[in-house]
């Protein structure tokens, strides 16, 4: 173990440059988000992730956000274990009817101010599962959503761009249009 740790001192880090925040995301947030109180949160975001029936593909790429290449924690973005500790609820999946209540309860357990980020194509409107007897059809059909990050699944870079846009809006204390 000591050898591995020692070696890391002499090798360049894997961590890559932060991507520019996504334009589409910034625009969506500009219209959805507007509250001067958010400036008080400072430059960090705590995220609670909820899988509302996804295929698990989005979860794999969300995990990748925490690896050495993307290193989302360097931006002050971290994943927390309880909705009580969260600023952001990150939701994947079309919202299966079996997960509807759990998602609602988790949303209500997140203290204000809070934002909801819907990850993936099926989180937007049910995606390829839309129309099934078992699916509600998009996170916004269950809880209000501030930001959608599309993809099947979205790449970690795409998610990072969306999250950085969210961070900018929060930090800038966006005013409602």
């Amino acid at each position: 173990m000591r050898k591995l740790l020692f070696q890391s001192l002499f090798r360049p880090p894997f961590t890559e440059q932060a991507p520019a925040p996504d334009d589409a995301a910034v625009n969506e947030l500009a219209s959805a988000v507007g509250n001067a109180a958010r400036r008080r949160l400072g430059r960090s975001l705590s995220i609670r992730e909820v899988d509302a029936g996804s295929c698990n593909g989005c979860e794999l790429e969300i995990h990748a956000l925490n690896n050495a290449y993307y290193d989302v924690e360097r931006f002050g973005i971290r994943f927390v274990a309880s909705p009580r500790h969260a600023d952001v609820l990150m939701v994947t999946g079309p919202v299966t009817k079996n997960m509807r209540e759990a998602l609602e309860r988790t949303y209500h357990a997140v203290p204000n101010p809070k934002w909801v980020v819907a990850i993936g194509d099926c989180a937007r409107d049910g995606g390829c599962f839309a129309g099934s007897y078992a699916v509600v059809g998009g996170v916004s059909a269950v809880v209000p959503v501030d930001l959608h990050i599309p993809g099947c699944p979205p790449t970690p870079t795409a998610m990072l761009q969306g999250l950085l846009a969210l961070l900018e809006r929060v930090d800038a204390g966006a005013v409602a249009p």
Partner: protein
Amino acid sequence: MPSLIDLMLEGRKVPQHSPWPRAMVDADLWKFAAGELARGRWSLLDQWAEPASVHMAIMDGLTAEIATVSLDCPDHNYPSVGLHHPPALRLERAINDLFGLTAEGLPDARPWLDHDCWGVGFPLGNRVYGLSKTSPYRFLPAEGDGLHQIAVGPVHAGIIEPGHFRFTASGETVVRLEQRLGYTHKGIEGLMMGADLERAAALAGRVSGDSTAAYAYAFSKAVEAALQLAVPDRAVWLRALVAELERLANHLGDIGAICNDASFTLMHAHCSVLRESVLRASHRAFGHRLLRDVIVPGGVSHDLDDEGTKIIRAMLGNIRLRFPALIELYDNTASLQDRTVDTGVLTPALAKQYAAGGYIGRASGRSFDARRTLAYPPYDSLRFEVPVLNEGDVNARVWIRVREVEQSLSLIDQILDRLLQGPLRAKVERLREPREGMAIVEGFRGDVLVWLRVQDGRIERCRLRDPSWFQWPLLEAVIENNIVADFPLCNKSFNCSYSGQDL
């Protein structure tokens, strides 16, 4: 003693079913087959239904012969297999939830996938659903002094799929674990009915994200079996390459994640870097980090160019350079070994009874690997070993993955060496008569089974069976007498699919 072939001869053979036979049987033959499963002579590969019939796919453990028996259910019931053979219990509960077919004698009649949230009963069946009051889900009791219950989920503390775990504990020790799944049920088999092949293939690849390539592979092979379609050579080899890349990425991620669940984050950090290198190579070579939509009926949708080949070889070289030091670290960290050795032991007897596949079965003495036992091309021309251990603990499941990483590295090299030029995809014809096909492909967590009936380019019925159906119940067995804190370790060493099981 009758063989599987004898059983088939007794029934009425269904034409246009490929590659293994399917036969209609009567209730007596059905019960006889259930008995042979219970006696351990045969393994249950799957049990599924249609609105008016129920099917069982069976494998002879000794000869590896495979066959499907079907029973008509004009009265919406059939003799329960789960009554004699526990691996069928959840399958029969799910069949009732979706099709309204009752397994007579089923000891556990509680719903499995139906949480009373759909607004419709028996959604895929043809039975008229009478509105009835449903009582809350009853968890199984455990009696004793000083027992307490711990309820976990469906929302879990990490970035992970949802499911409910009800622990009964005595102090720190787990007395009973009961799972309740179904939270991610999306009704995929319902969406498949009537879908054209392109949509159906896309759905198949979205059943379980970490096995998207394995599912697409199994679905495509089932279509090709049904239509008697020959896949071009280059595509046959590229498909195996894609499947091995998926296996590699998952195993590397899991080895680190298991260590992470024992709080050894250094392994997780380094393994995540190696996993990321596989995903990037996959993206560069085939256009998608998780290899989604690359394997399609008829062949593959994306070619491998020289640049992609170079990047894959560089990725293999890097893993060969970095991986041994990580394994040495795993093996030499006493505090980590203390957590993983002798924890979550799965007995070989249970693995055999449930026909548990993947690293779970192979860490408990069950040597079945579809790539070897069923030898589908190109694996019949490739050199590889199937590692098997008998200890069945978390440590054994880590070591099987380590060995399979080594095998996958070698397999990818061999495939790149022998890849020939040629077309990527055969044209998929629309045939007027109904055709049935079945395929079994070794995904990273075990064998994925797909059965389907296709007519005129549309899916009439498609069954997608995740290996986790025969792994989830075993997790309840292995956690017994372990401490609660070891549950994440056992759970991650199993790494069953929620979405794959729930469908």
